[in-house]
């Protein structure tokens, strides 16, 4: 299924600081995503998790600090260049485009295909063939995440959970080496959550990619993550395996304000 033989490169975030007019959204944040691992970023609302994703995908430029993917510095690159390097993401609020599931997934194939304005306008054989090949792969990915039956349905008619899945599948269509998932199960019911968790596990195993996960659902984080970084008010307050983080007093204080029994905080 996957033709990538080498392991994905290391994603190394060093001392990232982001300020919005006096407010420091991220304060010297550092973490390293080990190739092929699931790395969760957790923290209370407003801790800077989404800001962190926006830096990683090139939407925000940090005031200082570096993000490296292998040997490539990402912080100076435009979002489309970062996407071309194999970093794909989903959004916390669903952002799909008009058209069918197939149209959305084919957008994910954008950087992997070549057909320009002239070739598409004249429907040159190369463009037609390319479109057919990518459509076949997009269908495979739709099957993988459980969207197979909806492949030709308009996205606007799908349920909330299915639209979340469209975003997930669209990101997978980039054949990324690093996948950034911003709250992939927010707003889903228990069955949908379990299914999405299973899919994340499956794609990680099958495609061998690194996953960076922002999520409030602690159960999901604890089950999926290899490593967890905890943010609070823009700072890293804890880092480690799920078990280490769960027992960390700083984390409990950030989530609950006082000493607590280690129940799920979300």
């Amino acid at each position, binding site marked *: 299924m996957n033709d990538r033989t080498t392991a994905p490169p290391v994603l190394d975030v060093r001392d990232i600081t982001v300020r919005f007019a006096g407010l420091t959204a991220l304060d010297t944040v550092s973490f390293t995503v080990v190739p092929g691992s699931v790395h969760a970023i957790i923290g209370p609302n407003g801790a800077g998790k*989404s800001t962190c*994703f*926006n830096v990683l*995908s*090139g*939407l925000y430029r940090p005031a200082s600090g570096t993000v490296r993917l292998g040997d490539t510095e990402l912080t100076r690159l*435009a*979002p*489309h260049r*970062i*996407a*071309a390097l194999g970093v*794909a*993401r989903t*959004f*916390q*609020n669903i*952002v*799909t*485009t*008009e*058209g*069918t599931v197939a*149209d959305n997934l*084919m*957008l*994910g194939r*954008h*950087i992997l*295909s070549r*057909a*320009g*304005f002239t*070739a*598409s*306008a*004249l*429907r040159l054989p190369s*463009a037609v063939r*390319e*479109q057919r090949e990518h459509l076949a792969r997009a269908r495979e990915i739709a099957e993988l995440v459980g969207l197979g039956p*909806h492949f*030709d*349905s*308009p996205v*606007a*008619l799908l349920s909330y959970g299915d639209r979340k899945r469209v975003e997930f599948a*669209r990101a997978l269509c*980039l054949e990324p080496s690093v996948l950034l998932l*911003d709250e992939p199960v927010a707003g889903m019911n228990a069955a949908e959550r379990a299914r999405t968790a299973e899919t994340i596990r499956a794609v990680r195993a099958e495609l061998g990619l690194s996953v960076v996960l922002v999520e409030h659902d602690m159960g999901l984080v604890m089950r999926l993550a290899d490593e967890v970084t905890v943010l609070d008010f823009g700072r890293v307050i804890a880092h480690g395996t799920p078990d280490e983080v769960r027992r960390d007093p700083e984390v409990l204080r950030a989530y609950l304000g006082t000493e607590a029994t280690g129940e799920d905080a979300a």
Partner: protein
Amino acid sequence: MSELLRRYRAWTVLLVVLLCALPFYLDAFWLRIGLFSMAAAVGAVGLGLLSGTAGQLSLGHAFFLAVGAYGYVWLAGEPGPGLPPAVAVVLAVLLAGAAGGLFSPVAGRVRGIYLGVATLALVFLGHHVLLTADSITGGFNGRSVPPLELGGFTFTASDPELTLLGVPFGAEERLWYLSLALFALTWFTARGLRRGRPGRALVALRDSETAAAVMGVHVARYRSAAFVVSSMYAGLAGVMLALAFRRVVPDYFSLALSVDYLAMIVIGGLGSVAGATAGAVFVTALPLLMTRYADQLPLVAAPGTTDGAVGPTEAARYLYGAAIVLILLFAPDGLHGLVRRTRARIHRRRSAPKDADPATETHPPASAVRAKEPTP
């Protein structure tokens, strides 16, 4: 699906045969309406790609129509290089594209309605240049259009004389087939663009710039490219209009013309090639028909008389103004969306007992008014 496709093909063939047969039955007046409609349709399809597909408003379409029309006249005429007219057509289209490209520093950065304001300047600039650059444009009186000639065949009343099945082939009949061919080319290419990789990238840009960017779409480049492509279609429409009018004058290429084109794509339905065509025919044919039949219509004065009633051109404007209001209120996805929903309803009623596949039935309306994109 294949049955649907076959039926679609059959309809297309029937339509093409009908359009090809029309010059044998219609007189020059109706053919001229057809010529103007087809030219407008080419321009509207171009604007539809920019405004409907890419979500960029342009009020400068008249400028690019003028570049195409005057470009052809100058390149093929005297004074001018006097190139073979067929070459001049191609170069005029490229010239309009180049003019769009020169504007790309703006077109690539400025978004949506702001681009509309920025392109407003182009119309006034263009109009001023057309009036003052006498040696090239002929000033206020404009220039006559050199006839098109393809391999010894001239698109005029004679040279060579031509009579087919007892019908003398004058300029209108000949230009009809030329326009039909150019319109078919427009239809083919615009659909290819919309359904291909560039079209998906442009739709993504329109619906969410951030999503497009993180999916690897070079935002500025695709915005500029949409503008250039739209300008090229406008240039081609300009050439077709020039050939049909046989004279180009600056006053035709005014802001009102840009607004007409916007009206066409709104009436037809944003982002659809068929809709843009329907809108173009409506907006173009209406004033011409009302002028012709003014004496038979209530409340409309015959042209040239001043007996208190509304002139046919004004009446046509009122009518299509009303059409825009009605469409925005009751069918924001235009004629195209209206047809699609009606067809879906008929289909549903026919197959009501069976539980039909929802995917082929309902389409969400592609609204002309779009919600603001949420920030990530």
